[in-house]
């Protein structure tokens, strides 16, 4: 994470980032000039024409048209320049090059998951460097927003629609992904990483992470623990987050908000994954998404239950 940030902007790690920064600095400098001009004139006038005696009655000053016209025309020109520049760059940001590598992104309440063409699902975005990558994004519940500060890209992720964003990383490093559209309880924990590899590292990574069935159910459960986003709310080290920790969960007695209680056997674990709203454990809110019954097959749920039993 060697970042050479300027005081204003994070380091530019994608092709368009450089152009966005130049436009940003151009507007910044022009704004500072205007600001200093306005404030210094204001302070100078306030001092130069300060009141000498209470019954001052200065002669009326009528504005001259030339000065008035100048501060209409000059800002208009500047603003037009800035608009056209921004507009052209916006088209560049919007239109993905034809040969981009396409990855599917799913946003859900408080975690990201990335699906690759060959079936690999991962919670971090691994991409080849110096190659345009196009993300096809959609959300499973509310509006989220995919934002990578170092690439200067952002796009809201809507439910039921695909929205696209593209970038071409120029450096091999890990970059932060954040969600910038308010999406509920732990909107501020919905992080992920973009990891850029050289071309062949990337290919090896793809192969390594292929879901093979030689894994034991518990191992597959562990993979699912991250891929399906359980990691977003359930920790493994006992600390309570949005959801209870899995550490020592299996076999313990759980008392629920409606006063009843039950032993956490396989059946309880399965129902709480498939229909979380049924029984809410004391001290937690009913925020667990309910679509796992649909997005996960029953063997995947069994694998996850096996994994939880091992904690």
């Amino acid at each position, binding site marked *: *994470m060697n*970042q050479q940030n300027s005081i*204003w*902007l994070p380091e530019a790690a994608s092709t368009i980032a450089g*152009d*966005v920064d130049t*436009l*940003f600095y151009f*507007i*910044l400098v022009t*704004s500072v000039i205007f*600001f200093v001009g*306005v*404030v210094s*004139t*204001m302070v100078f*006038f306030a001092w130069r*024409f*300060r*009141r000498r005696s209470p*019954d001052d*009655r*200065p002669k*009326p*000053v009528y504005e001259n048209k030339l000065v*008035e016209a100048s*501060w*209409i025309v000059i*800002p208009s020109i500047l*603003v*037009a320049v800035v*608009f056209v*520049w921004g*507009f052209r760059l*916006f*088209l560049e*940001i919007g239109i993905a090059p034809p040969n981009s590598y396409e990855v599917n992104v799913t946003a859900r309440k408080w975690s990201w998951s990335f699906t690759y063409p060959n079936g690999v699902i991962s919670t971090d975005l691994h991409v080849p460097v110096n190659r345009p990558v196009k993300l096809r994004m959609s959300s499973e*519940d509310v*509006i989220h*927003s995919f934002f990578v*500060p170092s690439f*200067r890209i*952002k796009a*809201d992720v*809507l*439910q*039921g*629609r695909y929205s696209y964003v593209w970038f071409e990383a120029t450096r091999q490093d890990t970059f932060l992904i*954040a*969600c*910038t*559209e*308010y*999406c*509920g*309880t*732990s*909107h*501020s*924990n919905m992080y992920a990483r973009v990891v850029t590899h050289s071309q062949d590292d990337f290919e090896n990574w793809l192969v390594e992470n292929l879901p093979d069935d030689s894994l034991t159910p518990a191992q597959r459960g562990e993979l699912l623990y991250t891929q399906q986003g359980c990691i977003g709310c359930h920790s493994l080290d006992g600390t309570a987050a949005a959801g209870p920790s899995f550490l020592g969960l299996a076999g313990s007695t759980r008392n629920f908000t409606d006063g009843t209680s039950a032993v956490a056997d396989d059946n309880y674990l399965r129902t709480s994954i498939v229909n979380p709203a049924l029984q809410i454990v004391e001290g937690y809110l009913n925020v667990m998404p309910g679509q796992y019954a649909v997005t996960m097959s029953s063997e995947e749920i069994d694998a996850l239950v096996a994994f939880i039993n091992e904690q």
Partner: protein
Amino acid sequence: MSDESHNYLNARKGLWSWLSTTDHKRIGIMYAIACGAFFLLGGILATFVRTELGEPGETILGQDQYNQVFTLHGVVMVFLVIIPAIPGILGNFVLPLQIGAKDVAFPRLNLASWYLFMAGAIMAVCGWLFVGKVDTGWTFYTPYSSGASNAVLWLTSAVFIAGFASIFTGLNFIVTVHKMRAPGMTWNRLPLFTWAIYATGIVQVLATPVIGITMVLLFLEKLLQIGIFDPALGGDPVLFQHFFWFYSHPAVYIMILPAMGIISDLMGTFSRQHVSGYTFIALSSVAIAFLGFLVWGHHMFVAGQSALSSIIFSMLTFLIGIPTGIKVFNWVATMYKGSVWLRTPMIYALMFLFLFTIGGLTGIMVGVLAVDVHLHDTYFVVAHFHYVMMGGALIGLIGGLHYWWPKMTGRMYNETAGVIAAILVFIGFNLTFFTQFFLGTKGMPRRYHDYSEFLEIYPEFAVLNLASTIGSYILGVGLVMILVYALYSLFRGPKATANPWGACTLEWTHTGPIPDEHNFHDTPLVTRGPYDYHLADDVFGKKTES
């Protein structure tokens, strides 16, 4: 001139005389009390937000609590303070006086507006306190809001009801300015504050109904799942954003235009000079009112709207920058060859110019398509709108309150306390919000309860957020200080004369220290412009042949 004993404050006695008054001045005072209380509530919530963000990780609020606190901070500050405040308090009190009218056109409707405002306000606060957790943000974006708890129904109906107060106030002021000006008060002799309130009235009347229908549709979306905004039922969430911002952007002009009107009057009075470019400023107010309706899409550049509409909205957004620039340059030019008297209202006017210029220029920054992709929904936007809303509208309101305080209460506030508080507010404000520009450009998103993940890459986030929190405390102290010496002046402040600032507008020249219940004994005849100090012999005595 009304004699000392009989004025609008002591003309009638008892609480019921206030609650059933149709006197525009008393209704202005009642708005002042209500908006003051809600500003206090909003300020306390802001302090909670800043204390939580003071250090990384969870300090005083859990995630859910934090989300609820910033939601109510937004709702209270936007709908219950900054939109009703200036038209409600100063518009009600000053407008009829400035145009020489006995009262607004529909006094009973004016009182009804206050009650509608209070009903909406109480409903909002009770909905949040008792009914359930509302953590949707003040924007109520679907589908999150259509899934959230039923307390959202309370808040949406509260906004719907309070919206009518805004509509009726705007309607009242437009009819008053059109129909009830004193003889001789032609359109180009209207004080610029009246022009600004008139332009605000247009925006209030034309924009607020759309938030009304948006709230009704959101209400039905939650109750009957009518599926217009909720994508799970085939609706389109971006359509909700269109409906919402079609009102909410003109709403920011409801907030800033009255403040601009106050600054024009302050500049005129305290430079004792012609307000430079009177016609330009007056027409700019109306131009901003109309252009304000064409630009709402710049809130949605990355929200998934079509590229064509983003381009159109960005282009139209820059059209609004021009009249705003005209105003700022003309205010500075007003001081040229004037006699600038740096009393507290003028200090707040200059502070407004300083802060609003930063706000305006950063507005241009986020109006540019390519840069907004990076800056949207980050702390840069939070800093921008606080600079224009608080630095602009609130500072303008505080300056206006200081300026018209002697006329409203007959008392003078303490000048040195005023200056000290102004300095505190200035330092606190800049410390709080200028640091947030840096947070924003580095990518810290809005509405984040915790930023510890960013610390690996930007260790300076901790320092910046701490500085912002300390700044918010200083700002809080400054504002409380204003409240204290204002209340103190009510009881022990020196009696004010009829025209302590030597202003030339009707509310100073034709009324006693405290205006009579029916404003003027005989309707004033207006013979000169609002800022013709060289003609104002009635204020300054015979002009010596200097």
